[in-house]
């Protein structure tokens, strides 16, 4: 297994390096940068002192250098105006818009994002698994039709619309305050039981909203995979030999049909983070999404770059975890057209 891990990890490192370069180049594609826009605005207002400060910042953060030099400084491969201070040295850069170090700025937001996403993924699995198994084992029953309808509605409903509807009704029926992850009076309060309870209550709506489309997709996929497995000959043989239906189902077909659950972890993590951006804006959630959107709009390159690197890392690590789990769960050779698969 360690050999597998070593070989698999080796693919990960160059992938992350290439992604970091692509992220930086894409962020730099629009003409100008945050400071250029600021200088243009200040020039229009005739403010010379602020313009001098902007020029100072341009030199300070190496924005006057070539793109490749800026990338190498951001990564920490070459020394910048402040020596070696890039991602490799644990320095994520400076946010021009917030005028604070990126690391300081995104810490809490990444934590909130991670908490919401973990709960969303647990919600997706907890809801999709029993429904998917039920739909496959009771194919074309009223329950299956009902869940299929639920699945299509889940896939078709825009998340932000569902968010608005659920916010309204959770406020009317349960008195939950609209927006945010805690009650307004607890935002600046230190962490204690009341604040945690408030956060858990506020998290129900975002988790359901963000997780609905993922749940619906997972139900459809699990149902389809399990139906494929249930129609195979080994299931017929096991039934003919008198194996109890539940034992047969749990021992073989479900284990085989679980593969997409595992292999989807890698795809699920980034799609849940990026898919929650609009929902987070609508629901005023203090997560990474709205800040990433703002950073991309204002060309705050280090803030946007750091967020995107975090998403890339999440994807690559997620893929690694899912591959390792899949290797443990299903160490079979696959044959397709006479080739080992």
């Amino acid at each position, binding site marked *: 297994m*360690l050999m597998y891990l070593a070989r698999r990890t080796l693919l990960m490192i160059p992938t992350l390096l290439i992604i970091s370069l692509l992220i930086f180049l894409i962020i730099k594609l629009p003409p100008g940068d945050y400071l250029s826009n600021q200088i243009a605005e200040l020039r229009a207002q005739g403010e010379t002192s602020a313009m001098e400060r902007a020029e100072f910042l341009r030199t300070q953060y190496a924005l006057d250098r070539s793109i490749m030099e800026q990338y190498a400084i951001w990564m*920490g491969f070459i020394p910048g105006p402040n020596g070696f201070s890039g991602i490799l040295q644990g320095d994520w850069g400076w946010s021009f818009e917030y005028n604070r170090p990126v690391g300081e700025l995104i810490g809490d937001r990444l934590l909130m994002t991670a908490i919401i996403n973990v709960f969303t993924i647990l919600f997706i699995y907890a809801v999709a698994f029993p429904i998917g198994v039920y739909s496959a084992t009771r194919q074309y029953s009223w329950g299956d039709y009902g869940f299929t309808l639920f699945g299509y509605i889940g896939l078709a409903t825009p998340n932000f619309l569902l968010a608005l509807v659920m916010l309204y009704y959770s406020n009317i029926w349960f008195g939950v305050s609209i927006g945010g992850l805690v009650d307004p009076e607890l935002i600046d309060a230190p962490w204690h039981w009341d604040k945690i309870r408030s956060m858990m209550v506020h998290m129900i709506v975002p988790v359901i909203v963000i997780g609905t489309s993922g749940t619906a997709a997972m139900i459809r996929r699990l149902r389809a995979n399990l139906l494929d497995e249930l129609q195979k000959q080994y299931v017929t043989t096991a039934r003919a030999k008198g194996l109890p239906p539940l034992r047969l189902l749990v021992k073989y077909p479900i284990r085989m049909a679980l593969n997409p659950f595992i292999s989807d972890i890698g795809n699920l993590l980034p799609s849940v983070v990026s898919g929650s951006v609009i929902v987070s804006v609508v629901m005023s959630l203090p997560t990474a999404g709205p800040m990433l959107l703002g950073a991309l709009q204002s060309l705050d390159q280090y803030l946007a770059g750091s967020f995107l690197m975090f998403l890339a890392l999440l994807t690559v690590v997620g893929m690694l975890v899912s591959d390792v789990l899949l290797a443990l769960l299903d*160490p079979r050779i696959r044959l397709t057209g006479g080739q080992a698969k």
Partner: protein
Amino acid sequence: MTRLYYPLSRLWPDYLRAGGGLAICMGLVLFAAPQSVIFTVLVGLSLLFAWLGAVTAWRQQIEIELDTTGVVRRGWGRTVALPWPTLKAVTLRYYSTRRDRSEGWLQLVIEAEGGTLRVDSNLIGFPSLVERAFAAAGQNGVAISETSRLNAGRLHSVEGNQP
């Protein structure tokens, strides 16, 4: 008696991986700040690739003797002798780093009273070892998992498909 071994022609990709991984990670470690998380991760990865290189070197020098009484592994470290009548477990697992699961390798694990033997399908004569181990398991009444049986049945598809 049959002698099985790992030829250099099948091991050099692993040497290359270990060397490449170590070079990249150690190169990045030079730039990383010693107190950062990235530094710790990179040092951990460097150790992983160093381990891969060491294991590959170890695999290159081992020799496996196979006969009707059992299997013996000789080389650096302890000699492992596994008599077939004391066989406890046999597993045959398939690994691939590709998403389509092609170009992977098999790992055979044999457990008996003398210890545990782990070999992979880069070993010259691997199919004969698998065949003998499965036959011994059958004679001893040792249960073999469905996955291992399936992999043994498709062994030919991995032969000549080594990374």
